[in-house]
């Protein structure tokens, strides 16, 4: 007897079913954004005397209600803010900072540890402008930290890695290097170039 071949299943509608599911998921999908700028708010303390800080160690940034910038009493474009902040932090006026490459201007900041960026915004300032300014200031700190990381890295066994890469490596579970050594290096860079960003609350 001849072998009877199994009847073929009609799979023509399978595509339709798959399309139906596909469209459902297409419509419900929202790619959630889960990255941003981390900040730590200062705790509320009562009756604390404000510390005395020399005027030259403060870098003031004001954003008015038309989203215009006033940096150190001069108006500035957002494009130039990053460079201005780097120049201020990197100044090294008192000579105690061995890695600074700035102008050593006695009228600007003493060292990165003492330098403070003060940010003040108006109630009418747009959030977009505020984020742009925050972003540029964080970028300024990152530029300096990256430079420092490239200087320190080779002697500590982490050559050709900038600060951002170090942090990524540290947070990467698959990375197989020496995490305690890397942590110590990250902490050292963070103490050498601390993010001292103060916000004025009226």
């Amino acid at each position, binding site marked *: 007897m001849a072998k009877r071949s199994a009847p073929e299943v009609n799979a023509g509608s399978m595509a339709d079913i798959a399309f139906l599911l596909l469209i459902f998921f297409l419509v419900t999908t929202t790619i959630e954004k889960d*990255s941003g*700028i981390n900040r730590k708010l200062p705790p509320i303390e009562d009756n604390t005397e404000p510390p005395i800080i020399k005027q030259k160690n403060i870098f003031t940034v004001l954003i008015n209600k038309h989203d215009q910038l006033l940096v150190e009493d001069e108006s500035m474009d*957002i494009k130039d803010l990053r460079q201005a902040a780097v120049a201020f932090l990197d100044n090294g006026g008192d000579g105690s900072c061995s890695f600074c490459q700035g102008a050593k201007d006695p009228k600007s900041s003493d060292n990165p540890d003492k330098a403070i960026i003060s940010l003040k915004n108006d*109630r009418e300032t747009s*959030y977009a402008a505020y*984020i742009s300014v925050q*972003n540029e200031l964080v970028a300024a700190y990152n530029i300096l930290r990256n430079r420092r990381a490239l200087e320190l890295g080779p002697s500590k066994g982490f050559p050709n890695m900038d600060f951002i890469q170090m942090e990524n490596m540290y947070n990467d579970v698959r990375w197989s290097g020496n995490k305690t050594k890397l942590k110590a290096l990250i902490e050292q860079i963070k103490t050498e170039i601390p993010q001292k960003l103060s916000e004025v609350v009226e």
Partner: protein
Amino acid sequence: MSKFKKKGDGGLAPINTASLPDIVFMLLFFFMVATVMREDTLKIKNSLPLADQVEKLDKKNPVSYIYMGRPSENYKKYGTEAKIQLNDNFADVSEVAAFIAAERAALREELVNYLTVSLKVDKDANMGIVGDVKQELRKVNALKINYTTGTGDAISNMTK
């Protein structure tokens, strides 16, 4: 007569669509895997600003979301000024403290100190409302915050 006669052969062979389901399934699986169901239904316009110095929000630690923006088309009756949205409803600044307390109560005790507050603020909102919320957060000692942004060129925020 035979001019209009259909040609018996030589017509196009039908395209084989047998692999169509495979392609569709591939897309389907991609979207199934990439889908995150929204936690809250947004009643506000919420297009986030861009920044390029971003860090990833640590999902291992608990995260609470506070949304701000002006009410979207369907909720125009609530005005055009930016408002706060907590969970699924509009809220007042004074309710932020209670919201954080409720979020903390839902957490395991050892995780309470690691609560991060993610501020999802529309780029057209102004800083007044954000400042008020930040002040409220300071009062309840929820100090770890994250300005959630998209990734892109930050300068483009200011040149509309």
